[in-house]
């Protein structure tokens, strides 16, 4: 956020990739693409490619980490070394991926009916294969599909979207340039039935009014994303699998 202001982020009301301020990038969602996993999903969102695998409920390791009242939810968000269009990155966790793993986990700690499986663990594995701004929101959206595919009970469906501000215009679904050079970045995860917020982060400077407007924009986007998630899951169950899936 807030890098060089030489980059023209809005020209004649259009964004760098030609979108209007309230337009989302193209998304493609698929469920059940990893046969070994209990649940899985693949989300392609603009230039982002996210793979999510879910296992559980399964034995809690280490044993002493087990909670006698509910399942322990674990989440690992990882950026691949080839995900950036720039340099080859290093393998392994970073401070950023550790933080994102935590805030993504907290979304599902709210929604998963964990009391049903005491002394167990539910693993959410997120691998970003390609990154182009908005990987954490695409990850939440993918993880929700994978958890449903695994039959893990949840109180609600959830999806996420990054709102933002660039050149003083409020935007939906920040792309990479807007993420890097815009004035503000607000990732939000919103559940479908209750429209509650389960992930809220922001940077930059915003008025309360701007934030309120962004939440309204997020609600609209969240309904669209929900439709895609449901369509992906429906396709999987109606076709009895996802044999024809192409990466």
């Amino acid at each position, binding site marked *: 956020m807030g890098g060089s202001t030489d980059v023209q982020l809005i020209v004649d009301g259009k964004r760098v990739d030609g979108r209007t301020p309230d337009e989302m990038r193209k998304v493609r969602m698929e469920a059940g693409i*990893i*046969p*070994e*996993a*209990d649940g*899985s999903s693949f989300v392609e969102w603009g*230039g982002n*490619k996210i*793979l*999510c*695998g879910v*296992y559980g409920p*399964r034995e809690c390791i280490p044993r002493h980490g087990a909670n006698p009242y509910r399942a322990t939810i674990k989440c*690992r968000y990882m950026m*691949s*070394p*080839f*995900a*950036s*269009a*720039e*340099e*080859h990155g290093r*393998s*392994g966790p970073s401070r950023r991926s550790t933080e994102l793993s935590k805030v993504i986990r907290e979304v599902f700690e709210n929604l998963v009916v964990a009391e049903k499986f005491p002394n167990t663990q539910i*693993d959410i*594995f997120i*691998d970003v*294969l*390609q*990154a182009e701004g908005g990987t954490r929101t695409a990850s939440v959206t993918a993880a929700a599909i994978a958890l449903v595919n695994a039959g893990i009970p949840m109180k609600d469906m959830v999806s996420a979207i990054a709102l933002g501000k660039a050149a003083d215009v409020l935007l939906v679904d920040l792309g990479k340039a807007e993420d890097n050079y815009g004035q503000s970045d607000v990732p939000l995860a919103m559940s479908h039935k209750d429209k509650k917020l389960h992930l809220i982060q922001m940077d930059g400077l915003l008025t309360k009014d701007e934030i309120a407007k962004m939440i309204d924009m997020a609600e609209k986007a969240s309904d669209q994303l929900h439709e895609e998630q449901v369509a992906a899951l429906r396709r999987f169950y109606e076709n009895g699998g996802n044999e024809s899936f*192409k*990466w």
Partner: protein
Amino acid sequence: MTDSKDTIMAHVRREVMNKTLANGIRFDERGFEEVRPVDVQTNVITTAEGSAVARIGKSAVLVAVKFDVVKPFPDRPTEGVMMMNAELLPTASPTFETGPPNEDSIELARVVDRGLRSAEIVDVKSFFIEEDKVLGMFLDIYVLNHAGNLTDTAALAASAALLDTKMPKIEDGKIVRGESTGPLNPKAVPIATTLVKVGENWLVDPTRDEERVAETSITITTTKDHVCSVQKRNGSLTKEEFLSNIDIAFKTGNDIRKMITR
């Protein structure tokens, strides 16, 4: 490849498999030298200079190729560098754990690397840019789904990814991302063939069940006319068995190579 935590997913005992094999077929009705259906998709990761996902049966491996400008090794100042790393994604199997590379993922990377290096797929001298600057070619092997025989699947993805790779444009000692000077054009396309022995029978392209009960496992990587890498894992072979397996590896290698070079 052994699983570190082996709970029964699809457990079978050697005696039971031997009985089925005695009838000349395997559990999935394949012949002993038959490979499962092979599928390769290239240009899957557009942020990489080359990529491919290879599937053998339900096993799936992604390989991405990326270039960076790096410092050469001090003892080879005019040569480029090729580095390979493998990740057994915890998504790919309930038996894969998070954490640093273990012996299985390290062996996988090194075996695939050895095949490519011996086959001299690229002339690393052509990666020289200027003093203290060479091209580093990084291959990342990402195992996406484990249904047995990850080695052959990974090696196939690597060869296919290299065939898909475009050389980056270099200006003032820096890579200009998004622009290329043409395909990498690897000089060879090595294909790995893994065989396991169950009872008296050698089986090509083992499933997880077969890997689990096999007494012996060997991977032979071949180019059109040469063996370029061999890795025996558990067990032992006679000279005759080894030579016979080499014949099988050449045949399988040639069949599969035709699928990705057209």
